[in-house]
């Protein structure tokens, strides 16, 4: 790597580290060490193709999605999820306190399998469409759809406070629908 590329890479890491760590933190269920490992592994890969890649961040993110899913077989410890930045009120008017709900959902997310969690992170945090998720993970749209469905069901199972899906909840505001979702 020549000094110019080295400088560009350093700038990229400096500027994008926190965003990448944030994504890795979600993908790993709040495990800080694993999150840092994930970001560094992905950055190592991007380094090997630094000159050929037009969108380094997109590449790193894609590597992280795939890497996280491929690592799911590894026996990893269950660590405490960190909720370091207390968020504002969630505003869910269902009688449950926002803090409780956040903790409940956060814990349940941390207990999903990496594959299930990755699917939800891509759909709800990265705002990718089903087609984009399928492309990123190298699977079919049907797999994305079924895994998302199972992940949500498991989330409800892990957090009974979320309740069963309401039968009458037919109308979903378009603003809250992930891109490419069918309602």
């Amino acid at each position, binding site marked *: 790597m020549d000094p110019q590329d080295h400088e560009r890479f350093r700038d990229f890491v400096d500027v994008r580290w926190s965003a990448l760590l*944030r994504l890795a933190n979600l993908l790993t269920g709040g495990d800080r060490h694993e999150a840092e490992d994930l970001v560094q592994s992905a950055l190592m890969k991007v380094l090997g193709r630094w000159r050929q890649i037009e969108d380094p961040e997109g590449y790193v993110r894609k590597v992280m999605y795939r890497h996280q899913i491929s690592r799911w077989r590894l026996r990893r410890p269950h660590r405490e999820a960190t909720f370091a930045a207390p968020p504002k009120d969630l505003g869910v008017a269902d009688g449950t306190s926002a803090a409780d709900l956040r903790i409940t959902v956060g814990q349940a997310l941390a207990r999903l399998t990496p594959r299930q969690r990755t699917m939800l992170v891509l759909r709800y945090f990265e705002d990718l469409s089903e087609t984009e998720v399928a492309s990123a993970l190298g699977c079919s749209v049907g797999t994305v759809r079924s895994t998302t469905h199972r992940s949500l069901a498991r989330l409800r199972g892990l957090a009974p406070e979320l309740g069963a899906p309401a039968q009458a909840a037919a109308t979903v505001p378009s603003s809250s629908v992930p891109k490419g979702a069918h309602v």
Partner: protein
Amino acid sequence: MNADQLDRAIRDVLHTWAPDDPSAPTDVADRIVRRHRRRSRMRVTGAALGLTGIAFGALLVTGTGGDDGTRQPASRVSRQSNLLWQTTMPGKSWDACTTGPRAVYCRGAEYDGIGLDARTGKVVWQQKAKGVSSGRSPAGSLPGVRDGVLYSYADHAPGAPRAGTDLVAFHIGSRKVLWKHELADDSRRWSSAVLFDGGVLANAPTSKRVTALDYRTGRTLWTHYRSDVDCDRAAIGGVPYLMCSPDSEKAPQRSTVVRLDPATGEPRTVATVKGPTAYIGTDGDAVLLGGMAGGQRFLSDPGPATLTRVDVSSGKVSQHRVDSLPMGVVADGIILASGGNGSAVAYSADDGKRLWSRDLGLKLRKDSRDPTMRELPSDAAVDLGNRVAYYLDPSGHLVGLDLDSGAMRWRGQVQVQVPKRQVEAGVAPELMVYDHGLIGQIGGELFRIKPTLPKARS
């Protein structure tokens, strides 16, 4: 909750779920470049060695090598390490240390808090204790660091014969004390103040009561009282829990695990089990308790024990008989207990099965004034990435055991300046895993070392 609400809740949780310290570790880009170069070099070297191996293999096949076909396995114990720094801290008596983002913090008799740069070992911040008289503070722990605030302990009435203890929040950036709160007693154990999501659970104002304090302001959020029991405190998934055991033989002989609502303190009993128990630790979402199973009178009496596992999500309780009370560090489904005489014993946190035991081979001197007393090794510091449990003795010797088998994987030593001092029986050094390496504390000596582990078997 309907689908729309669930969507919104997940989206909001994901968008507000941030790592503690999102800033990039120092020189991370350069380190990645160096690792990448090393890996590229290894690939080139590997290819060259591969070719050499093929040629050499051909010689063996044709008999030219004269080998009998057997090969001694490479030693699996590494003695290599890199001592990154070693520092002698000011003051004489140090009781506890903890690590934070790029820093290590300690507390002792003469300092309520001291901060060192984890890269260099240099002292960058310190808060002297007021009115030091005894030269020793109650041993124990440091509650921790969160959002740039160090939670430590200090004497409530410095210089007084019974000084009492305050929980103190130090803002590391401004070096100011944000708030203080007097605790019930001088216990400065790890459970005297527990950080949970949104607050700090303090054992105050009495030993039977806990108070939740706002972690930024120290304002009391709620309090909770329990009679007839002594409780340990822990945060599981950011939620505070109490593990309570009867405080006397007259009290109802049952132990309970109680969840406290983080916002209101509303208690919910998760599980109740017969008899007194001791809190061992948490394993994922499970609380581990140890009880007596051999007719002993006290938990400290030797003899068979019961390992109780309580799943805090479902309240499910499972109990297993173990040969002795497995008190120790819990790491990824394994309890690492002390086997006495400088040995370690590993038990399964799932069923109490004894997995392995191992003499640590550390130097633990006996006290000539009382031969029944001897030095102690540190608690295990577990590197889950490499699945190694490390221990440190007061003379600076270190060992690393395979977490799953107990096999020795690494040995190291740090030259400490106090090898010939008087034996301090019962005072253990402290070892912490930090950035795939170790930070150790022996008295006033603090060091950071990076073990080089043998490569895993393929």
